[in-house]
């Protein structure tokens, strides 16, 4: 996603930043779900609030990654036009990984002893 020539129209960088951040946040929720299943110590570490258990850490890590990466990517891509098709593909793959990682028959494949 190297910056390309500036367009007279609105640069697509801010939208690319939001899309990839959305994908990253989603993929992180999927990854946290898999990791918590695989490791009891990670599951314990993600238990940020006992009444709701590790779900709090798994989802809030994803939400934090979403917003932080959005801010970072926004400053990287603002005012720039990037290859939208490639960025969209990356974002959709990340979003798909998020769905896969949260699907019980998948994340239970990684269940620890």
């Amino acid at each position: 996603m190297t910056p390309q020539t500036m367009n007279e129209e609105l640069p697509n960088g801010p939208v690319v930043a939001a899309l990839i951040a959305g994908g990253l946040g989603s993929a992180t929720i999927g990854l946290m779900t898999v990791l918590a299943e695989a490791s009891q110590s990670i599951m314990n570490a993600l238990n940020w609030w006992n009444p709701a258990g590790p779900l709090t850490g798994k989802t809030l890590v994803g939400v934090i990654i979403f917003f932080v990466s959005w801010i970072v990517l926004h400053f990287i891509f603002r005012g720039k036009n990037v290859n939208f098709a490639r960025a969209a593909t990356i974002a959709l793959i990340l979003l798909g990984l998020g769905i896969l990682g949260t699907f019980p028959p998948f994340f239970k494949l990684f269940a620890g002893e």
Partner: protein
Amino acid sequence: MTISVREAWTVLHGMLFGAAFLLAFAGGLAGLYSLRPEWVTGEGVKERIFRLKVGLWSIAVIAWATVISGTFIVYPWYRAKPPEGATDLTEYPRYLLLADPSKAEWHKLGMEWKEHVGWLAPIAATVVAFAVTYYGSALAKKVGERRTLMIFYIISFATAAVAGVFGAFINKIAPIR
């Protein structure tokens, strides 16, 4: 005609927030799909974009309200652990489901998928609302961008639908009281 606090929160989470999100989806999708310069005049695009912005941001806020209320208010009641030796599990839905092999999958598949995948809905909905707000009327001429946003939007709906449908069934089989 009485309703407990727990039942009221469950209704708010599932029937008001959740159902409002799912119902509003169709309007947003129709707006995004028909946002084409060959179908709508310039004035029409402007008018439609205003409605889309209001609608999509409302959907995003509702989606956040749904997952936050679900995870931090309703879910603790669902997963509460019964006291040692308890035989009546009706107030402990998770354990009620797991105690019956014919119902255990409602937790192992339904609840465990719902509680995680539902969080993807507000993230995807927020991205779409931001992009439509950013591009405004210019989005009508951006075919690739509009197509990608529609996919994000449909995935947002699909994840919310998984959460909503399983939530409705689970609350029927093992209600939070």
